[in-house]
Structure formats: structure tokens, C-alpha cells
């Protein structure tokens, strides 16, 4: 009799434990759904509101005082050119720094400082980079609110991402690769150039794409350096009407997120539809780049067998 009582009591405890488990698992799933679905719904709604504005005209028109005529031509061209400068600056610097830290750096205080510094830079608010660029690039170097200033600012901003990705990719290469190359008489640089870099290229590429996806959505630092919100012309095309090859880098510009910000802050509803359409294009761009990076990482990881 007593034994049965005890069994029943234990069963009750187990039941209670399972109920709590189930309750928490449900809450967890709910939170996960909340996190994922709210964002998906919001993006979907934005797409629906902007869809009427999404036509070819929207991509080939300049911004306008009349919402129905306004387009994002100067914004997407500006974003593209800024990304070009960013990539040209951030890729060599980031990869070079990553290679140095993994392959060359000796364990000393200088290396420690560089490493701590990179971790800290990743936590600096992006608007502070804007202030850095305003003080140094715009005024001290006299570059003004140009495509060059913006590209360099964003390059500094994504440098930690590229460096960390490079280091992780290089670290995944087994030491035997280096030893094999060195045993055949290659110098350190030859080993890096013909073995380390090619093998780590997929990982580096993934990091670069993720970094650029982050850069293309950055608004605050670009506003800070004084990008304009209303641009109804394109940067000079090289060799057309006497423009030099690099004249476009010094041109005033606007970018997608700034155009969207400008339209969002206007009270007229028609402009808010424009903002929705621009936001939808922007989200498709960043999500597309991120998805590409994730797919790339997945595919290349599957193919590599050391």
C-alpha cells in the first residue's frame, strides 16, 4: 500500500516536470516565432505598400517633388559606386591584415594590441565612424561629402568583419599545406600567395559579401559626412563630356538608405509609399547578399576535404 503511494507520488512529480518542460518549450517556440514572424510580416507589409510604385520608371527616375514621378536612380547608382570604393579599400586592407595576423605576426604586445583593437572596433557605434570621417576625411584631407569619403568610411566600418573572416578561413587550412610548400623551397610569401590565399578564398569571399551587405544598409555615418538627400544628377561618367577617369569619386551623391530615410520623414502618404518601395528594394538587396554568403559558405564547406 505504502509502496503504491510512493510510486504515485513520483509519477505525479514526473508529470509536473513534463508539464513545465512542455510549457517552456511552447514559450520558446512562441518567442522564436515572434522574433522571426514580426520581421517577416513587417517586410511583407512594406512590400505590399510599395509594390504599386515598383516599376521600371521607379528605377530610372530621379527623385522629384511629386511623389508619383520620384525614383531611385541617383540612389542606387550612388550605392553601387560607394560599394565599389568600399570593396576596393576594405578587401586588400582586410585580407592583408588577416594574413599578417595569422601567418606573420609574432606573439608579442604589438600583436595583442592589434587583436584587442579589432574586437573593440566591432563594438563602436557606426555614427562614431561618421564623426571620424567628418573630421578626418571631409575636412583634414579635404575630400568633402564625396563618394570617396563615403566609400572609405564604410571600408573602415566593415574592416573588422573582413579581417575576422579572413583569419577564420586561414585557420581552417591544415599546417601540412604550409609545411609541404615550404619543404619544396617556397618562401613564406610564395606559400601565402600560391596556397594559403587560394584555399581560403571561399571563406574570405563570404566575409566580404556579409561586410558589404552591412555597408549598403548603413545610413548614419553617410549622413554625418554630409551626403545630400536630394540629388537629381548622376556622377560624371569617365571620358564623357571631358570628365576624367576618376572624377566620379569626388562627386556629391546619395545612397539608397538615405533616400528612404528622406521619404520616410515626409508627412505626405504618397512619399511613404515611395519609402516602402525603396525599403523593399534595399531589403531584397541585403537579404540577397546575405543569402548568397550563407549558400556559398554551405556549398564550399561541403566540397572541401583536406
Amino acid at each position, binding site marked *: 500500500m505504502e509502496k503504491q503511494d510512493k510510486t504515485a507520488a513520483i509519477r505525479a512529480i514526473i508529470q509536473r516536470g513534463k508539464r513545465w518542460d512542455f510549457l517552456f518549450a511552447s514559450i520558446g517556440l512562441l518567442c522564436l516565432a515572434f522574433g522571426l514572424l514580426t520581421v517577416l510580416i513587417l517586410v511583407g507589409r512594406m512590400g505590399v505598400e510599395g509594390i504599386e510604385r515598383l516599376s521600371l520608371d521607379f528605377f530610372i527616375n530621379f527623385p522629384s517633388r511629386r511623389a508619383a514621378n520620384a525614383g531611385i536612380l541617383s540612389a542606387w547608382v550612388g550605392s553601387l559606386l560607394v560599394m565599389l570604393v568600399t570593396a576596393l579599400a576594405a578587401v586588400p*586592407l582586410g585580407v592583408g591584415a588577416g594574413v*599578417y595576423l595569422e601567418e606573420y605576426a609574432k606573439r608579442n604586445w604589438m600583436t595583442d594590441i592589434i587583436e584587442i583593437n579589432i574586437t573593440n572596433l566591432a563594438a563602436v557605434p557606426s555614427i*562614431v565612424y561618421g564623426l571620424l570621417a567628418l573630421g578626418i576625411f571631409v575636412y583634414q584631407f579635404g575630400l568633402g561629402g564625396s563618394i570617396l569619403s563615403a566609400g572609405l568610411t564604410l571600408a573602415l566600418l566593415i574592416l573588422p568583419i573582413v579581417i575576422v573572416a579572413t583569419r577564420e578561413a586561414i585557420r581552417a587550412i591544415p599546417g601540412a599545406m604550409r609545411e609541404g610548400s615550404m619543404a619544396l623551397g617556397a618562401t613564406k610569401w610564395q606559400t601565402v600567395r600560391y596556397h594559403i590565399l587560394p584555399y581560403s578564398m571561399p571563406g574570405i569571399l563570404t566575409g566580404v559579401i556579409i561586410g558589404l551587405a552591412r555597408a549598403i544598409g548603413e545610413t548614419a555615418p553617410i549622413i554625418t559626412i554630409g551626403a545630400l538627400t536630394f540629388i537629381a544628377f548622376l556622377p560624371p561618367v569617365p571620358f564623357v563630356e571631358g570628365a576624367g577617369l576618376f572624377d566620379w569619386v569626388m562627386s556629391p551623391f546619395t545612397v539608397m538608405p538615405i533616400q*528612404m530615410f528622406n521619404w520616410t520623414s515626409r508627412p505626405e502618404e504618397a512619399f511613404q509609399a515611395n519609402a516602402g518601395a525603396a525599403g523593399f528594394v534595399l531589403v531584397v538587396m541585403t537579404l540577397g547578399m546575405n543569402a548568397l554568403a550563407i549558400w556559398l559558405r554551405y556549398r564550399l564547406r561541403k566540397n572541401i576535404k583536406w
Partner: protein
Amino acid sequence: MRNWRERLIEGLLFCMAAVSVLTTLGIVYILVKESIVFFSQVRIIDFLTDTRWTPLFDDAHYGIGVLVSGTVVSSAVALAVAIPVGTVIAIYLSEFSTAKVREMAKPVLEVLGGIPTVVFGYFALLVVTPLLQKFIPSLPGFSLLSAGLVMGIMIVPYVSSLSEDAMRAVPMSLREGAYAMGSTRLQVALKVVVPAATSGLAASYILGISRAVGETMIVAVAAGMQPNMTFNPMEPAATITSFIVQVALGDLPHGSIGYLTIFAAGLTLMLITLSLNIVGLWLRKKYREHY
């Protein structure tokens, strides 16, 4: 010849690595340099204690507390969303979900973290504020509340991803020990895994806080930009970051007092995030468990 070239390349690569240090030095240099000029015109005591912030008016007041209050309130609202939701998601993914759900959810969360913040600002102003106004009719068109809520949703992926990493790093043997003693999943999660991962959780919360403090576009779009000394989330107010954006949108001559204020504001922001980082480092050291 060969040696010489190798040396040159090593030197070049070192210079590339040094760029990151130069960036930090550049940030400190420019913030301090312009702030010194600012504080030669404004007394530090006024900067810290004045309760008005009207740097661009004739009757200029420079009380940074006004902007700090906006930053504190919007961040508090954001964290009230992000920390509970992020932690529960992390516990769920690490201790409860199947591997399949985890493999699906992690990249999706990662990607959501990459949505541009100006898009979140659009949500806050045009979707969340009208929705909230249905429940709270007195809510103005711009408010710290809706900016903070959306900021919280934005920060959830950062908190959950780092917290989950911290919990997965807890050795399996601790869990197995607890299970062997008859613990349920929830008991293992809350009484074994969470305490063992405290340092990592703290680090993820600190990162969340510094994201919230430094977030710019959501508050610039949805919280209104008028300086307002308030601790009421239902009111519109400027934050440190949205003030910088507001000034940068206008046309301020280089070296004018308005130009200098954004560097003083930036220095304040930088000091806040820096102290958060130091607290995070200290917490991590203090609560780190060795296995």
C-alpha cells in the same frame, strides 16, 4: 634579393594590420580634439548639469543630460524586449529544439540581424506607432516607446545568437550529470546550463546594450528629434545619436559651435559604450567558469 622582397611584403602586411589601430587613434584624436575646442567655450559643469539642450538657439544651453535621458529611455525599452525574448530563444534553441529547427533558425536569425536599421525606423514610425495608438490613444506620432520596441526586435538576434553560443559551450557532462540525478529539461536548462554560461550571457547582454545606445536611424525616424528631458517613454525625445544626425542633415559651417557640439555628443557616446565594454570584460572575468 629574395630575402629583401620577403621583408618588404611582411612590412606592407604589417602596415595593413596597423590600419585598424590607426582607425581607433583617429577616432580618439578627432573626438578629443574637437571636444577640447567645444569645452573652451562651454563649461564642463554646465555640460553635465544643465537641464536644457538648445545649442542652435540664441539662448544656447548645453545640458547633455537631456540627450542622455532620451538614450537611456529608448535603450531601456529596447532591452525590456530584447533580453527576455533573446534569452528564451537561446535557451530553447540550445536545450529544447531539435537539431533541424536549430539549423534552420540560426541562419534566418542571422540574416534578420542584417536588415538595414533605416528599414526598422520605417516600421516603427508607420506600422508600430499607429498600432500602439489603437491601444494608447494619447500616444503622440513620435515616441521613445515605439522606437524602443522596434529597436528591441532588432537586437533580439544579437542577444539570442551570442547567448546560444555561450550555452552550447557548456560541457555535455554537466548536463548528463544533472539528467542522471533525475532532472527535467527545464531544471537542467535553468539550474545547470544558465548558471554555467553566466559570463557569456552577460557578454551578450552588454553587446545588446551597446547596440541600443549606439543605434541611430530608428530613433532618428521614429522618436522625433526635439530635445526633451524626460523619463517617460510615451513622449518624443532626441537621443545622443539622433541629435548628431539632425545636426548633420542641416548645413553647419566647419568649426562653428553647432559643428563642435556633435563631437562633444559623440565623445559622450563613445565614453558610454567604452565603459559598457569594460564592464562586460570585467563580468566575463569575474564569472568565467573553468572546465
